[in-house]
Structures are given as structure tokens and as C-alpha cells.
């Protein structure tokens, strides 16, 4: 019987798209990362071995600080959104009047493009007309994200939580719904308290989904750009200058393609590595 190539032909379209959208750009980025190449000052690429990587890892305090800032941001937003998402999921699992309307309102932030979220928060934080400074004034807080680094960082964190916690909530709600009711009822009959149910039933049975959504949130939050760019532009100082913003500045303002490619390669592989760790934990958990 002759070999049937039909299945390969059926998947070849997807392979071609992957090739052009992912593989070639990655290879080209790697090629650029081995060169000194600036569109304005060094328009002819010149090979520099791994010097870009050496400079990045040994000397570039600014980018390294951006990485640390980015990780701090991602860890905080992931953990907090998990807690909030869980709370939302438990709340949504109950039956109450207006539940469907509440669900729609809760999911509205998800429907907004990131740039719109950033613009909206920028208006809300405006010292002249913003609602947030106005309300905080009553608490005796002089709120100004253009001047206070801590205010800016916390605002960016809250903005991200506001935007993406509904997604976490929805995923965990689905996970909650998949737990057999009999288990919960048996536990209640046996007199299990709420913390005990949480610890011995909900968390173990939802662990995979919690880990999965944590992985998604962590990866996404590391790559955040639009919202922060609109709200603070990376300032004040460098307090909200995460890797994506530093990269944007390097590639599209300084036009430093070679070094920017090196930074993006390292950034990509850091995300892959962290995701791989979380994936391994998932696999172990599954086993």
C-alpha cells in the first residue's frame, strides 16, 4: 500500500503559517542579535559574536532593573489576581438575583482593548479631573502618579488586576463547576468547615486549573505594554519601565536593532523557561 501523504498536506498550511509568523522572525531576530545594527547610526549590520548578550547580562543595569521590575510586577499581579479570581469564582458560583447581569458587568474590562484601558485609567488618575485623586484627597492622600513612583507602580498593578481578574475568575468558576456536588455535600454532612473544604476539597481538585491560569497570567503580565505606555510612559523615573517598555524604547526610538534583538531573545527565553517550570509542576500534579 502506498504511503498516504494526505494528513501531512492537511497540516502543511498551519506549518507554513507557523514558519513565517514564528520560525523565520525568531531566526532573523537571533541573526540580528549577533550584530551591531542601528538603523540610524550603523545601518550596515556588523558581526559582533555574542557581545550584545555579554553587554546585556554584565553591564546593562537599566535592562536588568527592568527585568527585576517586570518579574516583581508579574509575581504580584499573578498572586493577587489568583486570590481575587478565586473570590469572584466562589461568589459567582452562588445563586443570587441579578447574577447574569453581574457576570456581564464583571467581564466588561475583558472586552476592552489594552490601549483603551490605559487611556481610561490615565483620565481617572489625572490630578485635575480624575476621580481617583479626588476621592483619595478625602483620605488625606495627595495622589500623583506623575511624581510619586510608588503611586505609579501600585496604580499600574491595580489597573492590570482590574483588567484581567475577570478572566481568572471565569476560568476558576468553570473549574469550580466541574467539582462533583456530592463531594461537597458529603463534606458538609461530615461537618467540614469552610477553611477545611477549601484546603481538602477545593484546592486539590482545582489545583491544575489554578496552576494553568497562573501560568497564563504570569506570561501575559510579563509582556504587558499598552496599558503602562498610555498611563505612565514608563515613568516617573523608571518606576514603571518594564522590559517591554525598555525594549520599545531601544528598538523604536534608538533604532538599536541588534541589541534590541538580543534583549528580546533573552526575554523570550526567560518567559519560556518560567513557563516550562510551571508546566512541569502541572505535569507532576497531573501524574
Amino acid at each position, binding site marked *: 500500500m502506498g504511503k498516504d501523504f494526505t494528513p501531512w498536506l492537511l497540516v502543511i498550511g498551519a506549518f507554513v503559517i507557523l514558519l513565517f509568523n514564528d520560525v523565520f522572525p525568531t*531566526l532573523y531576530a537571533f541573526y540580528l542579535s549577533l550584530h*551591531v545594527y542601528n538603523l540610524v*547610526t550603523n545601518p550596515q549590520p556588523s558581526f559582533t559574536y555574542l557581545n550584545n548578550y555579554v553587554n546585556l547580562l554584565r553591564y546593562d543595569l537599566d535592562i536588568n532593573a527592568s527585568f527585576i521590575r517586570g518579574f516583581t510586577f508579574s509575581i504580584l499581579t499573578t498572586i493577587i489576581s489568583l486570590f481575587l479570581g478565586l473570590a469572584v469564582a466562589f461568589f459567582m458560583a452562588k445563586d443570587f438575583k441579578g447574577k447574569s447581569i453581574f457576570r456581564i458587568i464583571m467581564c466588561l474590562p475583558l472586552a476592552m482593548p489594552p490601549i483603551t484601558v490605559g487611556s481610561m485609567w490615565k483620565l481617572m488618575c489625572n490630578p485635575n479631573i480624575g476621580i481617583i485623586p479626588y476621592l483619595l484627597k478625602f483620605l488625606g492622600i495627595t495622589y500623583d502618579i*506623575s511624581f510619586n513612583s510608588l503611586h505609579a507602580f501600585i496604580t499600574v498593578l491595580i489597573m492590570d488586576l482590574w483588567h484581567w481578574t475577570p478572566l481568572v475568575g471565569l476560568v476558576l468558576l468553570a473549574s469550580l463547576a466541574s467539582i462533583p456536588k456530592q463531594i461537597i455535600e458529603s463534606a458538609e454532612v461530615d461537618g467540614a468547615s469552610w477553611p477545611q473544604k477549601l484546603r481538602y476539597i477545593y484546592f486539590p481538585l482545582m489545583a491544575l486549573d489554578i496552576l494553568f491560569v497562573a501560568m497564563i497570567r504570569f506570561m501575559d503580565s510579563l509582556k504587558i505594554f499598552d496599558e503602562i505606555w498610555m498611563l505612565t510612559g*514608563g515613568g516617573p523615573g523608571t518606576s514603571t519601565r518594564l522590559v517591554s517598555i525598555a525594549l520599545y524604547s531601544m528598538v523604536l526610538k534608538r533604532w*538599536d536593532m541588534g541589541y534590541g534583538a538580543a534583549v528580546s531573545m533573552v526575554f523570550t527565553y526567560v518567559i519560556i523557561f518560567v513557563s516550562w517550570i510551571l508546566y512541569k509542576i502541572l505535569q507532576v500534579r497531573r501524574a
Partner: protein
Amino acid sequence: MPEGDEKFLKSSFGGKKVSRREALSTGAKIGLAAGLGLVAGAVAGYFGGTLTRPTTPTVKTVTETVTAPTTITSTITKTVSVATPVTETKKVAIEEWLKDMARPFKGTTIRIIAESTPPSGWVNSVLVPRFEELTGIKVEMERLGWDDVLRKELLDIEGKSGIYDLYYIDELEVMATFFDKGGIIDIYELMETKPDLVYPEFDLPDLIPVSYFTYEGKLAGIPFEFFLRLYTYRKDLFNDPTEKRNFEKEYGWELAPPKTWDEYEQIAKFFTRPPDLYGHITMPSPGTIAFDFWMLGWTYGLPNGGFTLKRRTSVNEGGLLDSDRSIVFLKRYINLLKYGSPGILNFTWDELRSEFMTGRVAQGIIFGDQLPDVVGSPESKVRGKVDVSLPPVEPKYYFPGLPIIYGDMGCWAISSASKNKEAALLFLQWVACKENAQREMSDLGGLCTRKSLLFSPLADKIDKKFNWSYLKVVRQVIMSNLATGPFVAVPEILIYRDMLYPWLTKAVAGELTPEEALRNAANEIDKKMKELGF
């Protein structure tokens, strides 16, 4: 797995049962092996190759002779051509000429990218429709913020995609880069090879910014905008007898446009009466603070923001970025922010205009292309209440003759990948011809690109119309050579600005002292320049 699917997989993939885990694992191994192989191949290939890193930069330096500037107070007599009155005959001539010349290009479309400034907006709304009507050539203009314009233009040139026929240029560094990359053509050469397409009355040398857009003898584009960043103030407040009396009582000198930054600060303090009035405005947002520093630094005797032609910034290396004058400048800059409106730390060039229009600001250094809205827009609360003057200087560091006023000019350059170069040339001449330059001057509060118009009685009439002295001051600036260059194209200024702004914003936020910020910035920039081969 359904039996049918299992059979299908077995028969299709060599009879071997492949689980999802195995497939993913195999794929990852292949990818990793390919990646490692590429690394080894790249290193081996290039190591064995003949490519070497250039030891000298590939950027060309243009040397121009700059006439020695004179002091501000001296009077210079220059012979300038007086604008011949625009008669009906001349007006018809350009339009008739265009109708004739454009016949072969009827039906084509030219695509233009421009920064969204009032002049480009005026061209788009007033001149483009008439041009289309006269010539049958369609014009599509895309107006964006400066960052987006530069990005799209560079990517269009890099990709040779030829999306745009005309590129907007307003910096010498950008012009030099575009020429070096072969992205734009020499307008002089085009005019010489196609003399029929040159309007006889055009008078190219009459355009003020023409010399700025000339690079190694080549003309990058035909200018259509020219304006200065001038000290702008509320003359209604300055002329109010009560305000004058109170000010003189407090500070001991007559309230007038300041000549020094000390005087500026006193005026700022005097007029800061929150929440209705503030004494200062500028643009310290992360995206614009480096521009502010670079533009205003001249008044502190800090040319080009302390960045030298040798691409150095630190004092040790011959620069001025971490010099005493630079530190004094940054300290004052930060100190003045307390006299600004709430939220000033996020102000960009847009807020310079919009905040001034609200009537809540007493003074500032505003861009000339924003002033037409300030003095002429129906939304402006300060129409007829604004005037301009030369900016203040820091006497300790400023030396007479040094340019102090940021001069901005914009032109459109023809893309070398354009298939409609001739049609584009016709459009450029339509925009910048004397007749339309005069209209622009009249409609836009005095933005003037032509010497003959600037030194004509018409200029005084327009100043009177807007009840201010913008064109008078512009004349003074031109005659005294007070407008800043740059005089030499230095593409690395883009890198300098981008590396400088994080340090400046840290100083503004109080995370570092001005000294620390400037010292760190200077060291970092110099290190980068050395890496680039300078």
C-alpha cells in the same frame, strides 16, 4: 481514541502509534537541535568568514560654515527682497500652470505622511482639495504624532515598500539618515532633470529653511513650515495696572517679559494662584523632557544639550551634559515645576497648547506652530491676550551670539521608491509657492516660510490682525541669527535623547539629585557612543 482515528494515524505516520506527548517532545527536541545547530553554524560560518566589524562609524559628517553670530542688541542691516504684491494675474498663473503641467499625471494618487501640526492640518484642509480640483491628482495625507511618523518612515525606507510618496522631515539627523539610506531623492537633481516641472515663479532660495534641509549639496525637501519656540505670555495680565503695581512693589522692577531666568521665576511665583492661574508651563513628561532639556539648554549656554560633534557628553570627554551650567539648568527646571498646573509632570507638547488656551497659564516657552490655536481658535480663552518675546537667558553662562531659540522647520521629501515623483514635485510647489505661503501666513497667525513675506508690510498687518508681535520677533531672530540649528547633522542625537530621558525623569521624581542624574546619563551615553565606534 476512536478506533478509526487510531487506524488513520497508524497508516499515515509510518505505522507507528504516536501519542501527543511524544509528538510534542519530539518537536521540541527537533527545535532545540535546530536552534543549537544554527548557533554553531552561525558562529562557525562567520568566524571563518571575511566579515569584520568596522572600526569607524559609517555616518557622514557635514561641515558647514556658520557665520559668526552677533550680539542680541546690535542692529543688522540686511538686504532682503520685498514681497511683490500678489496680484490676480500671479494667482491665476500658478493655478493655470498646474492645470497644464499636471495633465499627464491626472488620476494618480500621492500618499503623504506628516506630523499632525497646524500647518500640515491647514495644508490638508485648504490646499489639498484645491490641488485635487486643479490637477485631478488625488492626495492622501496621513497625520500622526512625531514618533509614529518617524517609525513609519524608517520602516518604509528599510522595507523599500514605497507606501508613501512624500516623507515629513523636521530634523537634520533624520534627513541625513534618509539620504544615507538612499530613502529620498535630491530635489535639486529632480528639478534639473525636469525643468518643465519647475514653476517659474517659485523662487526656492526665498524659502527660509532651505539651507537647513540641504545635505552635502543635496536638497532633501521643500519646506512648508517654519516656526520658533518663543517666550509667550499673557499681555493682559502683564499690562494690568494693578498687577504691575503689585509686582513692582514685591520685586522692585517693572513687570515685563523676563530677560533672565531669575526674573522668569519671580514672574512665575507672582502669578501662581491656584486653582485659577499658574505661573509656568513646560513639557516634562517622559516622552518630551529630553526635547525640553535639549531645546531650552541653549539659554544656559548649553549648546545641543551638551552633546558634542565627537559624540561625547561628559565634561571629562569634552561634553557639557554633567557640567555646572547643566546642573544649574536642571535644578531650575525642576524647581519651576512647582509653579505649573496640577499634572504638569505628564504634560507633552499637546498640553503646552491646550493648557495655555484654557487661560490658566501666565507664561511659558511655547512652540510657534501651536500659537495659531492659542491666538486664533474659537475655543481659546486667551484670544487677543497673548504676546511673544525672546526667551530669558542665564547670564552667568550664556554668552552673546549663542543661538537661544529653538527653530523648527518641516519639509516634505520625495521617496526614492515613489512611482509618482513628478506629481509629488508639483504638489510640493503648490504648497510652498508664494501665493499659498502668504495664505498660510495669514490664516495661521503668522507662520511664515518665506523671507520676502517675513520682511514685507504684510507681516506687520498680520501681526496687527492677531494683536501680537510674533512676526516682528521672528524677524529679529532671523536677523540676529538667534535660531538654534542644528548646524550639523548628528543622527546619534536620537540615541542621546532616548538615553537621557530616564535620568531626567528620575531627577524630576526626586529619586536622584540633578547632579547624580546628569553624571550617570553622561557616563552611560558616552559608553554607548564608544560601543558604536565613536
